[in-house]
């Protein structure tokens, strides 16, 4: 006769075998599901290569306090915000080069984002910002110069209303920017002019640092105000 303890032991081993079989089955199912999910997220379309287009970079020079327009061919996406960030990134790469005429460390990563918003109330800019509202009579307002953009096929028609660009800089960029009225002013004006040259609907520019308002760029140039995109006139 089989002793009782052996019966109990055999039963426990049998139960353990069943439990382990169930666990193994579940693990197999989970692995299968993970495999299926991975297949779903695999790219089914080839990545889109942005077409190369001509972009105008308004580059500053410390030696004569000037802004000079340079035309470069860059691969740029259609999305205006992304396009603006990439163009500004290229501008910052020029400033970060060792022999730059306007040396500013940081490079393309200095511009975190560029947000494009409609100007809140173009007819009453004077109330919101008297400094930005009345350019000298010899400088046409950006809104007046905004071309009527024809609607692209397959896209919703967009009114050629002026836009406010909000440029979000990184705190590392602001911290490493050389301090001085001339150098800080040139950086801001070259950003404004570059944005307007490539996206003419941009009429005003505001700056944030790490998503927050900041008093000055590096101790001098005011970052709390809106800048007219046409404040700086580059040399042709």
């Amino acid at each position, binding site marked *: 006769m089989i002793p009782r303890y052996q019966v109990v032991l055999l039963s426990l081993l049998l139960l353990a075998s069943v439990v382990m079989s169930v666990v193994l089955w579940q693990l197999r199912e989970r692995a299968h599901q993970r495999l299926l999910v991975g297949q779903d997220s695999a790219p089914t379309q080839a990545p889109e290569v942005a077409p190369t287009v001509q972009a105008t970079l308004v580059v500053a020079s*410390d*030696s*004569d*306090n000037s802004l000079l327009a340079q035309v470069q061919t860059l691969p740029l996406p259609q999305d205006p915000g992304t396009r603006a960030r990439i163009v500004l990134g290229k501008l910052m790469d020029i400033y970060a080069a060792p022999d730059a005429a306007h*040396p500013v460390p940081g490079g393309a990563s200095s511009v975190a984002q560029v947000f494009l918003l409609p100007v809140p109330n173009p007819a009453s800019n004077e109330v919101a910002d*008297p*400094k930005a*509202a*009345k*350019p*000298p009579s010899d400088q046409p307002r950006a809104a007046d110069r905004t071309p009527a953009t024809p609607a692209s096929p397959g896209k919703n028609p967009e009114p050629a209303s002026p836009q406010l660009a909000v440029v979000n800089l990184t705190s590392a960029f602001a911290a490493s920017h*050389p*301090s*001085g*009225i*001339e*150098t800080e*002013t040139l950086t801001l004006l070259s950003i404004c002019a570059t944005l307007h040259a490539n996206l003419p609907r941009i009429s005003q520019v505001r700056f944030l640092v790490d998503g927050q308002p900041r*008093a*000055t760029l*590096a*101790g*001098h*140039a*005011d970052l*709390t*105000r809106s*800048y007219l995109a046409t*404040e700086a006139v580059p040399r042709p």
Partner: protein
Amino acid sequence: MALDAAHGGDDLGGRLGDNQAEKDIALAFSMRLRSLLEARGIPVVSTRESDVTVEWNRRAEVANHANAQACLNLHASESGSGVHLFVSNMAPAEPMRFAAWKTAQAAWVTRSLALAGTLNSALLQAGMSVTLGRTALPVVDSMACPAVAVEIAPERDHDKKVTAQLDDPDYQARVAEALAAALLSWRSEGRQP
């Protein structure tokens, strides 16, 4: 005349060279210019005469209460060369009895441009290289007087090699002499916006 040596106290301003801060150069130059102006019989009000922190609004308050014929906001920088003269980039506005604090300079921009022209002529006559520009500076934008931000940079030759450093007493003296001469001539032109 009102002289505003920028920065001071905890606000070092820009780092100039190894161990110099913009606040020290600005203060030294302000004291030098003040001496020259007072020697010419021109009363001067300074926003600071030592290494102390002065708030932006306080600086404009001092200048505005002085009813100054000219207000100079003094800075120093290692970038560029010669003397940089900056006027507020606000559009000119009609003088009003009560001006908004942050845009008080708008009524004086035309006179500020004229003052910058006078300073530019004197500096050029003294053989300095001068850069003129417009900018947005919180202190200057709140000043109700002809106001110019003067930023002194090292003197450089055509090859961009430094020929006079910012802390060079002779260089500071030449710039201060030219500015003092310009302000003496400006004094006769009155204060109205």
